[in-house]
């Protein structure tokens, strides 16, 4: 295995009441790359991330992050990762700044460090001028940006972004994309899930396409699309149809 591999996912499995939500998933992520998990709703993307982020016990297989097993060494893993969950995980009654400072301090930052990091991250997502406003008053897109900014508080080496653009206005979406590209340029390794081909295409160096708990293809966006003709018009729907012979069950 190349020494640049920062993340190794090996035959990862998760059963919920006998149903395999993740069924033998394997892939590697290189240091500093944005790796995409692309798949329809219910494919098992979030479940994969939650196991990788140590919040969900694994049924089988293992994940090695920076040399530490999520299974045997979750505490070490937690120091390396930041999670921007699919759902907003924020305190709506508090200001954006209070949210960031709180989560930062929980990760061990001093008050001064947390304040500084919070302002820097709010700047990064374009919300510095709204730092002291209550998150409850924010638009959906702004809340998503706060959700992302919180994940950056511990300067993670590996960042999980689980559908960070769902229900987001174009302005916020652009802020989020800029932020992600900025982080990549600084060397952060990123796992990005989405069910939009064009997002994966813009951001990700490589993509694993998931369906029903399995990886059904793993390649660069270009290679995945070029099988189907005009790369500018190809969607996940097309790729999915090509790979499975089925339409998306849930194109929601």
């Amino acid at each position, binding site marked *: 295995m190349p020494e640049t591999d920062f993340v190794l996912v090996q035959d990862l499995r998760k059963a919920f009441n006998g149903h395999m939500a993740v069924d033998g998933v394997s892939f590697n992520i290189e240091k500093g790359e944005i790796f995409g998990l692309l798949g329809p709703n219910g494919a098992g993307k979030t479940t994969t991330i*939650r196991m990788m*982020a*140590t*919040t*969900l016990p694994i049924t089988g297989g293992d994940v090695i992050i920076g040399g530490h097993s999520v299974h045997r060494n979750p*505490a070490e893993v*937690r*120091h390396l*990762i930041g*999670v921007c*969950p699919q*759902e*907003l*995980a*924020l*305190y709506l*009654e*508090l200001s954006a700044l*209070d949210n960031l400072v*709180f*989560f930062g*301090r*929980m*990760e*061990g930052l001093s008050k001064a460090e947390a304040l500084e990091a919070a302002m820097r991250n709010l700047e990064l997502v374009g919300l510095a001028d709204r730092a002291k406003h*209550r998150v409850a008053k924010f638009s959906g897109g702004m809340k998503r940006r706060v959700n992302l900014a*919180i994940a950056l508080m*511990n300067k993670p080496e590996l960042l999980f972004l689980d559908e960070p653009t769902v229900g987001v206005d174009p302005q916020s979406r652009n802020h989020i994309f800029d932020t992600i590209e900025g982080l990549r340029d600084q060397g952060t390794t990123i796992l990005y899930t989405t069910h939009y081909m064009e997002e994966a295409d813009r951001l990700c160096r490589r993509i694993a396409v998931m369906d029903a708990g399995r990886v059904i293809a793993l390649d660069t966006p270009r290679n995945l699309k070029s099988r189907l003709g005009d790369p500018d018009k190809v969607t996940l729907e097309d790729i999915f149809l090509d790979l499975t012979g089925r339409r998306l069950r849930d194109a929601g």
Partner: protein
Amino acid sequence: MKSMRTFLRQVGLLAGKDLKVFARDRGALLFAFVFPFVFVVMFSMVMVWNSEPEHMVVYVATEEEDGGLSRHIIDAMVSGSGEGLDIRETDPDKARASLVKEEIGGYLLFPREFSDDVISGEQGAIVVYFDPDAATTRAALMSIAQTVIAELEAYRITYEAVAELAATSAPTGTGGPAGVPGTAAVSIVYEEVGKIDPPRPVDFLVPSYLTMFVFFSLAMTAETLVAEKEDFTLERLVSGTATRSSLVAGKLTSSFVRGLIQAAVFWVAGLLIFNVRMGHYAWTVVLVSVLLALAASGVGVFLATVAKTRRSAGAMAVLISLSFAAFGGSWWPLFIMPVWLQNLARITPHAWANSAFNKLMLFGASPASVVPEITALAVFAVAFFGLAVWRFKVN
């Protein structure tokens, strides 16, 4: 050592965050701090003491020789006692011994000089011996003693009036009958804890509403903990370095601090607005309030591990808080409830807190007599916190 420091730091941060959220929640603030006083004001205006026990045995004894005034009074009392109130005569030594052994809650004693004092116009006395814990008995003895005094007074006034009439219409020289008192009156003397003021509604209402409302708001902590599960902030916290025990302890701490603030507001307002009397040992009353807040916080975090959704957590908290309040002596005094119900009520933290408050504030009890209550509240706190940490799951 380092992990202990991390733990405490996280607990502090989590609690601080909760308190900040609480401080921004107008509804919760109103419920915690304003609502209770509306209740206390309303009820202190309408509440009257009406605490007739169902059936009660009261003991009286006299040290007087046969033929004394007390003999007649006791005979009248014993023969007049009926369904609700059973008055029995006993002898002074036996009564004393039974009280010491806590077989009876108290008794009335007519002292050796009773008749002499009354007849000679000295200040007579009926002595009420009682156990500070036996609130109902004490109340009954007090009212019986007052009745006796009122009757004697009426008798004296009638007698004087008749004597006056007789003096003006009868041949001179008869005068009043010897020994008819001119200014005699009989007072009641309380033994064991000396004289204390009769209980007033606010001295019952303020602490029992404190119990009800502090428990109520802290039980609602369950909702905020389950809400963090539903809002994924808990998952975010555990994907960082927070542990289950620091999460539960953080919730418990913020809840406890809220309870302390609420209790402090109750007591300050109680003292300033309602002129509440905290009894002879105010610090014990404070200690009971602190332990109640701790026990209620324990129940609150425990409920969060039982409830599946924040709605069910809220519903459970409301249901438990209201039923425990009624049942645990927050709506009417425990000591007027049947004994079996009083015993059953001990499954609620309310009963222990209210019983301690009532003993201390209404009946002038000493700290030693509320040791069981204090212990029980501490056990509630530790047990429920332990159960909560044990059962708490993030997913």
